[in-house]
């Protein structure tokens, strides 16, 4: 029992020492980021719209892949050279293709991508309207009861509970 609590205490101290040893490491990285807050702000803004080519479902801003790191460094450099956002994107597109952009440019090649869904929606609405109209007119023709039917209904209703 006593031994256990001593062990726990020792574990606590050890882990505290371990964690505090890590702190300077983290602080160093933070310092790097704080170097130029304006550059970092623009970097994040731009790289959120860029795809990391290694882990394709991650943005360049969030990826921890090494290439993403290199590319962020590259984008930082371009920002410091005072290039505009679209120039920076062009720079990357020239190397990696349209695929690096999460929002691809609107051009004939990407028309299907941009407008295809709306086209499908319009087609669906037209199809639906056509279908509903057809169904309704079919029902109009069919649903009216004949005089014979009405007479039978009346008879049944009047007959009350009797089967």
């Amino acid at each position: 029992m006593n031994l256990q609590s001593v062990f726990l205490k020792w574990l606590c101290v050890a882990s505290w020492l371990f964690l505090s040893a890590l702190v300077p490491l983290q602080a160093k990285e933070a310092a790097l980021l704080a170097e130029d807050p304006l550059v970092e702000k623009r970097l994040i803004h731009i790289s959120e719209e860029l795809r990391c080519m290694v882990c394709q479902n991650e943005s360049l801003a969030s990826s921890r892949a090494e290439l993403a790191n290199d590319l962020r460094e590259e984008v930082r450099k371009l920002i410091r050279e005072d290039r505009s956002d679209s120039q920076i994107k062009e720079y990357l597109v020239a190397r990696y293709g349209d695929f690096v952009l999460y929002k691809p440019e609107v051009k004939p090649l990407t028309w299907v991508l941009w407008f295809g869904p709306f086209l499908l929606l319009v087609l669906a609405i037209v199809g639906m309207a056509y279908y509903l109209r057809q169904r309704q007119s079919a029902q109009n023709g069919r649903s009216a009861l004949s005089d014979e039917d009405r007479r039978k209904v009346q008879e049944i209703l009047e007959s009350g509970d009797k089967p």
Partner: protein
Amino acid sequence: MKKFLIPLGLFLGLVIFLAVGLNRDPREIPSPLVGKPAPAFSLDTLDANAPKFGPQDMKGKVWMLNVWATWCVACREEHPILVAFSKVNQLPIVGLSYKEVQPQDESAGKKMTPEEKLQFARDRSALWLKRHGNPYVLSAVDLDGRVGIDYGVYGVPETYVIDKEGVIRYKRVGVVTPELLQSTILPLVQKLNAS
């Protein structure tokens, strides 16, 4: 009547689309560099006594640029294929040693100088090439991956075929297979050599 055929047709259409979509390799992305001049560079090579190398040195030749590294697992798979291919002597293969020195190669708190990095890359690459065979006429050393960025490298190995005018004619991301060499690369090289 045959009304049930409409949803069935739509469904089959969807199945075909999905089947095609799922069987495509999402890593295979058409490179914007095909048809463009190979980006210029000037890099040290693995041979300490050789001058710097740049694509302009290969003007007038159809050649292959193969991006590799000793830490790259897929390169190990590709390497024997390249070695065999180089023995056929169809075209010169130039290596681009991509980011040979990785962060874990540097002991914590002690950064290597660029000279140390180059030496490290040369030593380790030479050992690796000695063990696995050397298909390259030379290997340029891209330590910081800057040239890699210009070539749109995002997964090693990558392979480019560059024509006599220095224009990139073909790019492959991933392992070059013997089938690919036979069906695509060799015919292209023959065509480019003839022109």
